[in-house]
């Protein structure tokens, strides 16, 4: 039986090595050499000349923007999302699956479409304004607030789902015991429920932080092209076929991601966070 399982695991391992590991190695090679569409492997020269791109002010600011917005988005998603998850857990409504479905309802429409519409109703004159007579979002299109709103709106469901899963797993007997031993409901929450749900928070944070860090579509649309993320620059480099620079920045992002995962495993020695 075990042997058969091993065979079944193989296709994905092959997939992983061909479509992930090899390209990552290629990407690293492209980032430290002159290899591109018009230079073949035969004329390969290793050079670190592309690294001066990392000192360009736009690159530094883009990295700062990505990190700043990814951190803020994670914080907001955590604060706002946690209590939604908690409410769902406490809800007496029998079919919680339906509640969770409602939470992910926005994801049913295409991401770009949703973001474009959001940009539309955030601008000075829009369809909502002509219906309501006032501007719901107060013309924030093109600002950091618009980007933050869009990111939180898009990624918070990931936080809610992970936190909810962790909350559901908490044994109710523990909560009863806490109350029996004289804790007030609020103290019970902070001393029992919250610590036990932390693994969900960490998983959720990763699922919010990483796509925000590497993303480019949402900031580009909602900032009207004015707030540059590192993903925006990578996209531009590839569109204008500067593969070396694009690969270099992608590798740097990769190290950021690896770094945050390592950091996580350090805090999470028991491997509770699914990682």
């Amino acid at each position, binding site marked *: 039986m075990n042997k058969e399982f091993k065979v079944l695991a193989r296709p994905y391992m092959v997939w992983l090595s061909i479509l992930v590991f090899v390209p990552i190695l290629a990407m690293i090679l492209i980032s430290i050499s002159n290899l591109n569409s018009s230079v073949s492997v035969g004329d390969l020269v290793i050079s670190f000349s592309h690294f001066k*791109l990392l000192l*360009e*002010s*736009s690159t530094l*600011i*883009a990295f700062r*923007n990505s990190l700043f917005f990814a951190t803020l988005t994670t914080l907001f998603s955590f604060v706002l999302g946690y209590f939604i998850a908690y409410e769902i857990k406490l809800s007496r409504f029998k079919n919680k699956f339906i509640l969770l479905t409602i939470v992910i309802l926005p994801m049913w429409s295409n991401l770009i479409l949703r973001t474009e519409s959001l*940009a539309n109703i955030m*601008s*000075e*004159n*829009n369809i909502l304004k002509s219906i309501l007579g006032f501007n719901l979002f107060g013309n924030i*299109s*093109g600002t950091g607030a618009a980007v933050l709103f869009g990111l939180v709106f898009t990624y918070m469901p990931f936080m809610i789902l992970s936190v909810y899963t962790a909350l559901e797993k908490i044994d109710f007997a523990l909560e009863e015991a806490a109350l029996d031993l004289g804790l007030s409901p609020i103290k019970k929450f902070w001393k029992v429920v919250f610590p036990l749900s932390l693994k969900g928070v960490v998983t959720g944070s990763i699922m919010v932080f990483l796509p925000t860090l590497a993303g480019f579509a949402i900031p580009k*649309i909602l900032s*009207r*092209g*004015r707030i*540059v993320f590192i993903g925006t*620059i990578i996209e*531009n*480099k590839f569109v*204008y*076929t*500067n593969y070396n*620079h694009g690969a270099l920045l992608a590798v740097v992002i990769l190290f950021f991601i690896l770094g945050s995962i390592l950091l996580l495993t350090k805090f999470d020695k028991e491997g509770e966070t699914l990682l």
Partner: protein
Amino acid sequence: MKKIILMAGLLSLLLVLSACSSKPKLRILNWGEYINDELVENFEKEFGIDVVISVADSNELFYSKIKSKTTAFDLVIPSDYMIEKMVQEDMLLTLDYSKLPNFSSVTYMDGVEQIFTSMTETTFAATGDEVDFKAYAVPYFWGTFGIIYNNRVDGLEEALYTNGWDVYFEADNYFPTARRGMYDVPQFAFAAAMMYMDKNPNDYSLANLDLVRSVLETADFTEWGDDTLKRNVEADNLDMAFTYTGDYLDRLYIQLDEGKTLDEVREEFDLYIPDTTMVFIDAMVIPNTATNLDAAHQFINYLLNPENAALNAEVVGYAVATEEAFDIIMSYLESEDLTKKNWAIANSIYYNMEVERIYYPLTSLNPTDTDAIGTMVQNVITG
């Protein structure tokens, strides 16, 4: 039962046979939605040629498809800078003008002539070769760039027509409240700033790069976008945006279809084309992989016929290349058919050949320069 199988077999054989008819084939590589199908059908009927059209959506794809030689295209319709590149790399055949009798009865519009001259100049500057691009290419459509502006803003129109580029780049001096958008293609931004400074947009140098940088910094655009620009001006969320003339016409025709009159639309948002502006041209060329040279020439000749060029423009909506085809479109100014009439009016306003302008097609810069411009623009945006 056997009979049924036999019948089915015969039928499918018939289908296969009819599919590979003995008619000669003409393989065209074109942009998507860039030809009037009616025109193609007419051509097929008249000459007994099967036209097979493949589609690609960038000049770079045209290039790689010809280079890879997987399909032998007989006719390709790339843009100006790509034609320059293809000629430099010996990928194109020279046209046999004895097979293009219609050529002698048409006159290219002034803008088209300027584009050919400019292409010769940029190629000469890059390689030192004197190339006459008419030997390789017959224009398909061309178009200008302009500034879409919000006509609900009092005085903006007048300011643009009096001060041109200055209003767009020095808003502080002319229209401090104007919200302005720039196309987020770095080379377009570079070119626009160069034209504002009365320089040739293809004249790349580090000194010019610095000048452009300070111009763009001062301009401090509200938005860097693409298709969003035209929609934002239309929706009163931007006041000026530098973009394709076709982008404006696109929105104009949609509004006309929705029942507005031309004047109503123009009162909301209109297009100003500066005296010096960027242009593009798409032209028919024959790659050296072509197999059916006769059919390719026949097709080019067919499209040189003004009637056919006008018929094609009806669907595509860019500017025709010959004065004769333009005159045919102008004859619709008195047409009963409102769509045709509006189309003719739009052409008379926005593609008016009476107005003299300086037109620059953009050349393809080398990768290092393209990258330097890209980085400069990113630095401007991030501030």
